[in-house]
């Protein structure tokens, strides 16, 4: 049967198993939109901005493990989507973006709404294709899904000129594709895995440090087994939260710039480190010269370029976290007596001492709403069972610190690129994927403004997202850096002329509620989550001066943490530890 290119795009998506596409129409994509109209296997969700569409597809992918799919038009459609592509790329999220393009004979002519899509997107995608012949369309789409979802996942762009969507050819969707230049490694090297296990079994001060690779690779069960079989402390990166249950006593919290004291100190003093699906990002390592000086490092990652990029690795293992951990588990003997038992006990004592410092403490008697308190209550009220999306800033860190994730894919935030505006559209994607689930977006008044137009999408598709706006009337994280490092010169970090968020939400057809007293927080949250079918925008007016602690300044070592100042008013710098 002959189909047009546009019909092939839609049919291929359907045959690939895609049920939802997030997008925004325009001239070069109109044939494809017409094909969408004539079928009902693929549902299209109309965002209000292409950035919103890409973040929504991204949230959808993070919450499900499926490939998020985006459809945009050429030119501004593509440039608006670039932030969303880069966000997904930095966090290794599987995504396929189909972009309309000007007709092939106009490419290079500065035609109306022409942009060099392949050129513009190259540095922020895993791969991209320009399809010049309709005969290549179906197989290119298959390849795009294959590349996006395997190895280290990432976004793939398919640029489709308008004439290609108009031309016809015989359609058949390939069952699989083979590419001679792309063959991701799944299994780890057996010898290396044996060496790793030996090193771990003889460790005296071990730590297991895991990142987003465990979540994206669906390796949480295997990881939990590894950690529990060994009985070693486990810490997660911001992207790795939920990879190991936060309620397990072996979990010692997040690490990195705003990680717990115990995690960072354990990283600093460890003798053997097992890193899984993590990439030794600068927000995690701090000053590389002071990073884990005594550690012998085992690094498991699907992407060979992540290994040995920033730190020296003694046992590199290229492979998927799930496969490698399963192979390791088979070599770890059951909890019998171990030669290093005594050392491990001592190590745990040391960690308990660090935990005794209670680095996540905050002032619980304040007259003002403390943002940490809101998140603690959010955790309580939702029973820890919500999908939490977030934006970027202090609120993001507090959400990561105070909402305890026992399951993967529940904590959804832009870790690598740090994209303000991510939270609300990402929550839409999560809610579309899981219509019955509780989805909350923890945001700040600056971040939420960056994609606020998506409230309209939420109305159109009846998405009952709960927005927890920690409103400190500041770009809080920027203000915090200015307080610490720029002598309190608050240059342009004040959010002047904020909207009335209650009315703003109402004008989009949602419910808005403002909360100003700590005593009202819990009831307000209960009311919000009681309104199951409504989007509720809850504006919490919080303490403007609150800072995120602990904090390792950019470029400092893990042993140089600032902790929350005491009530004696000493500055954080004066309380530098160790």
């Amino acid at each position, binding site marked *: 049967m002959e189909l047009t290119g546009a019909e092939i795009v839609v049919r291929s998506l359907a045959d690939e198993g895609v049920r939802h596409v997030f997008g925004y129409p325009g001239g070069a994509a109109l044939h494809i939109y017409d094909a969408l109209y004539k079928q009902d296997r693929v549902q299209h969700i109309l965002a209000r901005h292409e950035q919103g569409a890409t973040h929504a597809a991204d949230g959808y992918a993070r919450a499900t493990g499926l490939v998020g799919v985006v459809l945009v038009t050429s030119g501004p459609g593509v440039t608006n989507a670039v932030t969303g592509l880069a966000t997904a790329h930095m966090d290794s999220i599987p995504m396929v973006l189909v972009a309309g393009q000007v007709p092939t004979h106009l490419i290079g002519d500065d035609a109306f709404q022409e942009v060099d899509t392949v050129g513009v997107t190259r*540095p922020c995608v895993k*791969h991209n294709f320009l399809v010049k012949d309709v005969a290549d369309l179906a197989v290119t789409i298959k390849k795009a899904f294959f590349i996006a979802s395997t190895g280290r996942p990432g976004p793939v762009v398919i640029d489709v000129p308008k004439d290609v969507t108009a031309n016809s050819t015989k359609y058949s969707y390939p069952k699989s594709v083979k590419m001679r230049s792309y063959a991701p490694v799944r299994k780890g090297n057996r010898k290396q895995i044996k060496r790793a296990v030996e090193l771990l079994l003889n460790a005296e001060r071990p730590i297991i440090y895991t990142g987003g690779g465990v979540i994206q690779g669906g390796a949480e069960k295997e990881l939990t087994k590894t950690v529990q079989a060994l009985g070693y402390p486990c810490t997660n990166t911001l992207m790795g939260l939920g990879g190991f249950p936060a309620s397990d006593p072996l979990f010692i919290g997040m690490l990195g710039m705003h990680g717990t004291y115990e995690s960072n100190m354990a990283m600093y003093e460890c003798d053997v480190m097992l890193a899984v699906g993590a990439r030794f990002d600068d927000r995690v390592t701090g000053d590389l010269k002071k990073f884990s000086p005594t550690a012998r490092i085992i690094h498991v990652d699907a992407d060979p370029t992540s290994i*040995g990029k920033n730190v020296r690795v003694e046992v590199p293992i290229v492979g998927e976290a799930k496969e490698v951990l399963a192979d390791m588990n088979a070599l770890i003997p059951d909890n019998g007596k171990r030669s290093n038992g005594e050392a491990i006990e001592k190590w745990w004592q040391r960690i308990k001492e660090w935990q005794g410092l209670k680095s996540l403490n905050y002032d619980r008697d304040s007259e003002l709403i403390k943002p940490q308190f809101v998140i603690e209550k959010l955790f309580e009220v939702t029973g820890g069972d919500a999908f939490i999306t977030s934006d970027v800033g202090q609120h993001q860190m507090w959400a990561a610190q105070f909402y305890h994730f026992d399951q993967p894919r529940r904590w959804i935030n832009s870790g690598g690129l740090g994209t303000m505006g991510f939270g609300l559209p990402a929550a839409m994607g999560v809610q579309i994927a899981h219509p019955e689930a509780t989805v909350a977006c923890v945001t700040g008044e600056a971040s939420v403004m960056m994609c606020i137009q998506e409230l309209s999408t939420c109305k159109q598709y009846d998405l009952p997202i709960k927005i927890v706006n920690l409103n400190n009337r500041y770009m809080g994280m920027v203000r915090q850096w200015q307080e610490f490092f720029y002598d309190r010169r608050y240059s342009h970090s004040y959010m002047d002329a904020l909207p009335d968020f209650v009315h703003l939400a109402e004008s989009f057809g949602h419910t808005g509620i403002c909360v100003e007293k700590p005593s009202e927080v819990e009831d307000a949250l209960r009311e919000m989550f009681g309104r199951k079918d409504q989007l509720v925008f809850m504006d919490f007016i919080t303490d403007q001066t609150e800072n995120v602690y602990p904090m390792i300044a950019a470029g400092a070592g893990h042993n140089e943490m600032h902790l929350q100042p005491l009530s004696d008013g000493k500055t954080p710098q004066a309380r530098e530890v160790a």
Partner: protein
Amino acid sequence: MAALFSARGYNIESLTVAPTEDDTLSRMTIVTVGSDQIIEQITKQLNKLIDVVRVIDLTDGPHIERELLLAKVVAKDRSREEVKRLVDIFRGRIIDVTNTTYIIELTGPGDKLNAFVESLGEIQIMEVVRSGVSGIARGDKALRS
């Protein structure tokens, strides 16, 4: 390729690319400098590009490097003879002549070409164009196998 080098801050000394006997493949020779760790990263990053079939570091074993140089130089009076002599010593050829200029063609490893340019000394160079290095491993093994 070039974008990858600039995005990651790697040096690129030269890059040559041309089709091969297999019309679905092109072959590139990239000359770069860096510590072992950087070279390892570059190799991995290149391998990661979806369209790259294979990457080898030619300097891991015996290999041959060749580069083509074309130079337009002023050749008048006494310097005419001198240039010709130098070209002969370096086994180059003069491939275009006017009353006042020569165009010289020379192939060899990069350092031979450098030496030639240096030896021109006082002679006025109007233009030099170099192809960048192409390389191939010695022996009976081929990149494709």
